[in-house]
Every structure is written in structure tokens, then in C-alpha cells.
């Protein structure tokens, strides 16, 4: 290990931690708004769901995701070989996402105003 190695590691870790702090800050400021679950398949919007209703959502024929009573979202079924999305567990906070790469399914938690903004821009 030389000086430059430590320098490089320091910079990368600092950048990572800073990014993490910024991300947490965004999460905190977004938590005042209502959060919704956005599902997209192959880059196309599949649907938006409130986190308040406990439900299971079938996504095409490939994946099934679940919203629990406390608003936590998890993928419970997938037909892909690695099942990484199922193993990932539950997401709850703004900005978190579960991605099933083989089926190109993205579960994403967004705030409700993002949706209204979109409607506004369409209306304009």
C-alpha cells in the first residue's frame, strides 16, 4: 500500500459517503409527501399504487409484488433464474427500488407530487 492508494481509497469512500448523505437528505425532505409505488416494465409505465392499501400486484406473467400494511413493498415471486429481486427484501423509503433485470421490471417508490408534476406538464 502506497500513499496514492490510500489517497484513492479515501477519495472514493468520501464520495460514496457524501452521495449517501445527500441521498438520505433527499429521502428525508421527500418523506413529508405521500409516497406511492411506481411499477414499470421495459421502461414503460405499468401502474402506480398507493402504499396504504395492502395488496398483491401481478406484473405481467413474470413477477408478483406485495404491499404490506405498513407500506413496505417486496417482490414475492419472479420466474427469473437468480431471484435477486426476491432476495433483496423490502423497500419503504423514497428513491428505493427493486429491479428484476431479466424481466426488466422496476418497482420504485416515488412521491405523489412527482405524479402531479407529470400531469401538469402534460396539461401544459
Amino acid at each position, binding site marked *: *500500500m*502506497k*500513499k*496514492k*492508494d490510500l489517497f*484513492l*481509497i479515501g477519495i*472514493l*469512500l468520501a*464520495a*460514496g*459517503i*457524501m*452521495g*449517501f448523505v*445527500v*441521498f438520505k437528505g433527499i429521502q428525508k425532505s421527500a418523506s413529508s409527501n405521500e409516497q406511492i409505488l411506481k411499477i*414499470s416494465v*421495459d*421502461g414503460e409505465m405499468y401502474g402506480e399504487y398507493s402504499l396504504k392499501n395492502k395488496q398483491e400486484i401481478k406484473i405481467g406473467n413474470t413477477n408478483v409484488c406485495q404491499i404490506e400494511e405498513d407500506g413496505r413493498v417486496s417482490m414475492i415471486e419472479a420466474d427469473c*433464474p*437468480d431471484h*435477486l*429481486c426476491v*432476495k*433483496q*427484501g423490502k423497500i419503504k423509503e423514497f*428513491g*428505493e*427500488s*427493486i*429491479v428484476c*433485470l*431479466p424481466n*426488466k*421490471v*422496476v418497482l*420504485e417508490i416515488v412521491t405523489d407530487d412527482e405524479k402531479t408534476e407529470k400531469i401538469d406538464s402534460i396539461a401544459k
Partner: protein
Amino acid sequence: MKKTAYIGLLCALAIILGYVEMLLPVFPFAPGVKLGITNLVTVFLLYSFTYKEAALVSCIRIVCIGFMFGNLFSIVYSLAGAFLSLLCMTLAKKIKGLSMAGVSVIGGVTHNIGQLIIAALVVESGSVFFYFPILLCAGTITGLLIGIVSSEIYKRIPGRIGNDSVFKR
């Protein structure tokens, strides 16, 4: 001929390490964070031989592991990470004052970046970049561990096989 046998041996080792890595549990908070122990072989080859041998072994390892345990998709995904990281490691090796640990850290981080870019392209969504900070830290730490281990291995392999005249064609 000895070189061919040696590279074959390292290929087998890389495939076994790839299998061992598949047995390790996935970190629940960050999908796709892996130790990257197969990078041991890649870094070792990069120093013992050249980037060409390292690329060859990485390619064979990914295709074999992909056909045995994964699918075509996981092959493409792994190749993207492996080749970006190998490219950056080859360039990083040329920087004076950077030891094996630093080169391996660059490899670990760029491997994650490569996979993240492919993931973003596949799902056509930038949401995966929210994981960038976690992957950056994880890549640095795993890269450092792998770098330290590979430099210790490199020190202990007798005669520095790569520089040994027997292994030159």
C-alpha cells in the same frame, strides 16, 4: 506450453471461485454487492502476464459460469462489468505510485459502475443510480480486500511466473 497449462489452471480456479461466490449470500440492503473473489485471478493475471491473458480468463470464466448456472442475460451483464474493470485496471496499472491494492480498488469500483450502466440501459430507468453511493463504497472496500490478498499471493508465488523465461513463447 507451460503458459497454456498455467492459464488453464487459473481458468479452472476462476470458475471455482465464481461458484463459491454464488454460494455466498446476497446482501439484503444492496442488491448486487458481491465480494468479487474472482477478481483475485484477474488481478493476479494482470500482474503475472498481460491484460490479454486476464481478458481471456475472464471471458472463459464468465461464459462457463453463465452456461452452468446462469443465462445469456447474466453473461452479458457480467461481461460488461468485467471488461470495464479490466480496461480501467490496465490503465491504472500504468500510473506510477499505485500498488496492486489501488489497482484492485479501481477494478472493484468500475466493475460496479459497468453493471450499473447496463442495468440502467436494460430497465430504461435512472432509478438504479440511487444505489451508486452504496456500490461505490462497497466496490472500494471489496476491491481493497481483494487487492491486499492478491498482492500477498503475488509475492508468494515462487519465481514470478510471468517474468520467468519458461513462460515466454
